[in-house]
């Protein structure tokens, strides 16, 4: 009996009841693929195939109309000296540095606050979770109005408190902060829910033991609960970082990269290059650099957390 046959005859799942028959086996194959083929073809056809194509494009200079020209690594070496690209990378870095710690800490804090049975807790949870359904376009319009220097609620509050009003989205130094705050509004629910789930899994015995040992509430949190939450922290940090370096929607619906390019992120730059200047080859090279960056971040965090003995994956 070959290994393959033995595996086939292992008692698992649905398979033909006539072992050894070649036709039965073909029937199994065909039957299986009839189930999986439509979705598999769609998913692979719209991901693997374009991903390979994007790589080929990144080695060409092409505007979509004229004859594409093969230039090898030309696009990539041009990227190395492209100041606009580095500026975009810096803006993306700024957003990531603002957004990721904010969203992880907010998730942790909100989860701890919401993880108790008090009156109105359902109301509090709903208020914090509902913004999750807001689209980038909706959030964009809301941000533009709330932070409008003239009519915005935020400046109104500052004014009535006697504080100086700000330019917000129209101020180069503040625009990214506003975008990060509004992203947080829409996404706090996600990190909060993950932390809430993890908090429920902290063993009660551990807490009791710590209480018996005379640990204060504060000590119990940092010495007992926080280490238990480490896998979630690693996971949310990676997930939010990947999301942050791919920021595009909210920039498009608020500042369109402005003021003076201050919020132009890598993906916004990619979009402009590809769909405004029709530099498909160069845009694809930017996309591959972004992909590489994403992989690096993921691998980096996973290796770091493995070293420290935190199993997140």
């Amino acid at each position, binding site marked *: 009996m070959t290994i393959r046959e033995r595996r*086939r005859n292992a008692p*698992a*799942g649905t*398979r033909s009841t006539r072992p050894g028959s070649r036709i039965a086996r073909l029937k199994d*194959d*065909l039957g*299986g693929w009839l*189930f*999986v083929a*439509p*979705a598999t073809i*769609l*998913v692979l056809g719209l*991901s693997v*195939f*374009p991903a390979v*194509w*994007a790589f080929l494009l990144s080695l060409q200079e092409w505007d979509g109309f004229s004859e594409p020209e093969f230039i090898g690594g030309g696009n990539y070496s041009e990227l190395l000296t492209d100041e606009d690209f580095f500026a975009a990378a810096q803006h993306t870095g700024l957003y990531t540095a603002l957004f990721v710690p904010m969203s992880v800490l907010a998730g942790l804090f909100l989860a701890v*606050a919401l993880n*108790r049975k*008090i*009156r*109105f*807790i*359902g109301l509090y*949870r709903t*208020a914090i*979770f509902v*913004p*999750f359904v*807001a*689209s*980038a*376009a*909706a959030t964009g319009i*809301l941000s*533009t*109005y709330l932070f409008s220097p003239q009519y915005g*609620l935020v400046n*109104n509050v500052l004014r009535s408190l006697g504080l100086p009003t700000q330019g917000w989205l129209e101020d180069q130094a503040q625009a990214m902060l506003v975008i990060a705050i509004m992203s947080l*509004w829409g*996404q*706090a*629910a*996600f990190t909060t829910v993950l932390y809430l*789930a993890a908090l*429920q899994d902290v063993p009660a015995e551990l807490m009791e033991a710590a209480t018996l040992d005379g640990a204060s509430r504060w000590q119990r949190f940092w010495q007992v609960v926080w280490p238990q939450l480490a896998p979630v922290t690693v996971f949310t940090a990676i*997930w*939010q970082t*990947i*999301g942050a370096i*791919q920021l595009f929607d909210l920039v*498009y*619906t608020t500042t369109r990269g402005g003021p003076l390019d201050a919020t132009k992120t890598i993906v916004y730059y990619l979009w402009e290059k*590809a*769909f405004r200047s029709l530099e*498909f080859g160069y845009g694809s090279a930017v*996309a591959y650099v*972004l*992909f590489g960056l994403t992989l690096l971040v993921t691998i980096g965090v996973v290796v770091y957390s493995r070293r420290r003995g935190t199993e997140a994956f």
Partner: protein
Amino acid sequence: MTTLVENATDAAEAAVRPLDRRRKGRRPSGWHLVLAPIALLFAIPFAQMFLAALSPAAELIQYPPPFIPSRLDLGGFTGLFGETDVLRWMVNTMLVSASAIVSHLVLCSLAGYGFARLRFRGRTFGIFAIIGTIMIPTQLLMIPTYILFSRLGLVDGLGAAIVPWLASAFGIFLMRQFFLSIPGELEEAGRIDGANRWQVFWHVVLPLAKPALATLAIFTLLSSWNDLVWPLIAINDEDAFTLQLGLANFQSTRRTQWELLMAGNVVATLPLILFFLFAQKQFVATMTLSGMKG
């Protein structure tokens, strides 16, 4: 044996457990002082949206504008439905989301079941390839997909908004994990009774999959309804705009008509808000599993 979906549902239950009645004689928790202001802060943007949509236009560009309008005015909505194609965009979005949900539920549960339960050559390769594609960022696919769609003639209709949402790696993976978790004896019983694969799938397995299907439907609804990137790059024809694309476009064409912009915002967001309020538990379960926003 617990599964992905069950875990998520448990977490969701924990997260939205109905409020506990406070026992008499206990003093109110100090956490109210923390939670009430935060909840209020989170509620402000949507409150602003509804109030501004119902404000007289002049009050929104008054200096300073009142947060609560002096009277209710439906001018934003009449302007929105009278002057713009928002109705058409709404129908478009509904078509996109409906076809995305139906197609996702059918194709991903079929594939998920196949990969979990059927034995055929190429199965392991297939499932690994699909999981691998989860790592590929959308941005990498934008340019070739746009070229592909324009060659297939999809860019001037709704096709470009629909096709990317017909199936997803996440959906297949989710359904596979679910089907792996249900006991095989049920299917064997069905086979012994003489049912073929399809009958077992349709009559025995699928009815058990309702929680997973609900999660998948919500995931698909949220991501297809709110999607901006695909319509933005691949729809040129204003008749084929989705609500999100139309809204994003308003920002440059109707920049100062705040009552109209906010009314459009309400039209695009209210269905999801209501749905969220009615199915909060399922939404939270979906959130735990995906984190698809970003």
